[in-house]
């Protein structure tokens, strides 16, 4: 990596000030994406603002919502009794991220702020209509996760909490890359009293909702309802690991598996 300055502020206000003081400053939470980027000399920040001991790791339930502090490690979510009881699909998703080393360091806030098109959390955020709270304001996940590695975050803005709407039931199914473990395609299916939401990660440049699959499942929440339903490959990612057509097929298949996990048939 290149030589860089490092700061560990004690408060969020201090962190924001540091970010404002230097336009090439970058904040760091678990560092599970950014540290490898630095090691490969693919980024040259002038200042690293370490948030890892600063952000809340609290997990709480109130009024039909599950709120998780942005500093919660994947392992915190995976093992949280509260998450396991109220939103077990999210605990399972967290347990599928990376490997134990990554889960011990990586944070939910970092993952959503990075918005990797193949990351797991964005699918849960979109399917569970999450509210993302930052040092400046609140966003709906659908707005916040705006594009490939893009969010609505300003350079001096930090995610502090994520609030998920608790569904009747939900499941996540992921087809992981043999190399990286990231989703080649992953589907988070959430069933609410009056709605069904299906969010697909990995397949496109940014997490998206599969409208046709949602419509079919609203009519009949069953694997059979998805028979013959497809996702349009146009606009999906194509690379040496998987082309758009294959990703589209995998996204439908992962949706079926998630529904199957819920219905058990």
């Amino acid at each position, binding site marked *: 990596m*290149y*030589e860089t300055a490092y700061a560990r502020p004690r408060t969020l206000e201090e962190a924001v000030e540091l970010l404002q003081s230097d336009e090439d400053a970058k904040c760091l939470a678990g560092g599970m994406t950014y540290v490898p980027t630095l090691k*490969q*000399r693919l980024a040259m920040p002038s200042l690293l603002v370490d948030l890892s001991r600063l952000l809340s790791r609290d997990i709480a339930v109130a009024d039909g919502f599950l709120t998780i502090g942005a500093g919660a490690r994947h392992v915190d979510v995976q093992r949280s009794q509260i998450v396991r009881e109220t939103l077990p699909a999210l605990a399972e998703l967290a347990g599928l991220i990376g490997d134990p080393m990554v889960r011990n360091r990586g944070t939910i806030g970092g993952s959503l702020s990075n918005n990797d098109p193949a990351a797991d959390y964005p699918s849960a955020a979109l399917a569970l209509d999450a509210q993302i709270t930052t040092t400046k304001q609140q966003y709906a996940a659908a707005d916040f996760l705006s594009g490939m590695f893009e969010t609505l975050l300003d350079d001096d803005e930090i995610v502090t909490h994520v609030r998920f709407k608790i569904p009747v039931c939900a499941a996540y199914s992921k*087809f992981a*890359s*043999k*190399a*990286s473990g990231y989703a080649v395609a992953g589907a988070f299916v959430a069933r609410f009293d009056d709605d069904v939401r299906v969010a697909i990660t990995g397949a496109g440049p940014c997490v998206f909702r599969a409208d046709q699959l949602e419509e079919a499942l609203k009519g009949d929440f069953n694997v059979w309802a998805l028979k013959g339903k497809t996702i349009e490959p146009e606009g999906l990612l194509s690379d*040496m*690991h*998987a*082309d758009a057509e*294959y990703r589209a*097929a*995998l996204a439908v*298949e992962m949706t*079926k598996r998630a529904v199957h996990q819920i219905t058990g048939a």
Partner: protein
Amino acid sequence: MFTDDVKLTNPLHVAFVRSQIASGEIVELETEDALEAEGVAAVHTGADVADLGSLSVNPVLPIKHLPPFSVLAQATVRGLGQPVAAVLGETALQAADAAELVYAEIEPTESSPILVAEKNWSNAQYEEAAAKADHVVSCTIQHPRLAPSPMEPRSIAAAYDAETDCVTVWHSTQTPHRTRSELAAILGIEAKRIRVIAPHVGGAFGMKASLYPEDVFVVWAALKHKRDVKWTATRSEEFLSATHGRGIKSEGELALSSDGTFLGLKAMVEGPVGAWLPNSGLITAWNAARVLPSGYAVPAQDITTQAVMNNLGPTGIYRGAGRPEANCLMERLIDKAAAVSGIDPVELRRKNLIPATALPHNTLTGNTLDSGDYAKALDVLCEAVDYPALLAEQTRCRAEGQLVGIGIGFYLEPSGNGWETARVTLNEDGSVVVASGSSSQGHGRETAFAQIAADALNIDIDQISVLLADTAKTPEGIGALASRSTAIGGSAVLKACEEITSRLEASEALPITADVRYENKGQAWGYGAYLAQVSICRSTGELSVERITCVDDTGTIVNPKLVEGQILGGLAQGLGEALMESIVYDEDGQLLTGSFMDYAMPRAADIPTIDIHKFETPSPMNALGAKGVGEAGTIGAPAAILNAAVDALRPLGVTDLTMPLTSQSLWRAIRSAEQGKS
């Protein structure tokens, strides 16, 4: 202690500036900015090392055109990642920062493949045999290019001694004595000025059997600047510039009569080599041809192999080194022959394997198959898996619409030829020191050699210490490669111990030292048969290997645990080739798989249930009777898995698949087969 852990005195660190163009002419190389950077001691380019000699290349094939060996590129760049300049910095970070300040303008040039070496073995009857055959089957196998990826990357540390003007070199290598002799030859200095130590080596797999241009530069720089110098490759540099394995394309045709008797084999092997060749640069293309037609009797043969230079990364031996390629071609051809003739694949193999009574057998390609009972490997395998029950179960699963396959891979594994040394000393206090010219990279060689000596001298194993991989303390030797160390190095230890015993009996006083240079009578040929059971998911193409059953005859076994470890490790790497590993370049010759984010290595969870069975037929070729086993798994597993995958999709009409068997490629094969039908 690994090489990177060696504490040097105020060493210089090397960072290489590498070509980002595969083929081109250097029009400008601007080093001034780098030289002025903080902490930079020197920047070197091709001109500084133009007079150095070349690495020797083992001429197992007749060489037509040998690409030049350049420590730093001269006027021409011939391979992606080739070092064009080197920066020596007081710290690794300063060297890396300054390397980015070197401006290299390289004008891309068109390049075409160059034939480096070629050989044909033919008894001129193949066309005749094919003409009278009832069936002729053919196939082409393009092996993926693989990154050997030992956990420890390349690393070298040179300590300069001003008093003697000598260097001590710690090198992560399989062949410390070769490092010394090659360095002496390339640098044009006396070998006695170089001491080479291979400390703990974190895996090698053939990738560390030779010197690299980067290694030569480090030692040259230490002597030039009269300072300690070190370099450890990054993982990215390993993907780009360490030797790759496989990448071979083999095409074959097998002619047989209606009763299944093999009549003739025609094979064409093409092996890629890079901008420069390591010592064993031609071994892979040679093995991929000369191990044909494996353990089968085939009257008419026409086998050609070529080593062809291209401008991708360098290639070299990688665990198996041509053996998987030869066996894979044969085993695929046999499964295709079984499919067209309607003969059971096991039966067809058994019918054509060279019988035990016909061994030793001289092959057209110049080998002597030494000993064993090849068909017995199949018999033991069929009994171990209950083959008839397995077939019945497959029929049942297929009736339910499942895609399940059974694949068999018989294999031969020739192990190295030649000599190795041992120096055994029996001290007055009863302790024994075994020094060997061979080396160890986690094989457990120290245990095996101590066991051999303990048995031969009839003393407790705790009395024995083993010395390896230090040219100042061990006799000159070859090193650990070609699955040769136990068979040849172990035999040398045995012979030295026998000499001590007879000198003791002649009442010689202690200490007694026996120096032995043991040469084997010829290659020992391990062999075996593997069976893979796989299932493939119709909707995702995902392949699961349910179970692999192995039968290996590795000759006399010194230590069963170590043999099992070799089989398991080799099998994991064979599974990697079969299912996921592949180096990929784009159309412009740029490397796409530059990290483990894109290059898939098997993890522990990818390894299926493995059953290992073995029996022992001693080899008459060495004193121990041992055969090689280091490469067994990498040879047997890909052939068995590939055959099983094709077998799984056979009901859909699929006849050929290409490794790695990724889920996407299988999904596509299933889809096109199903669309073709509808």
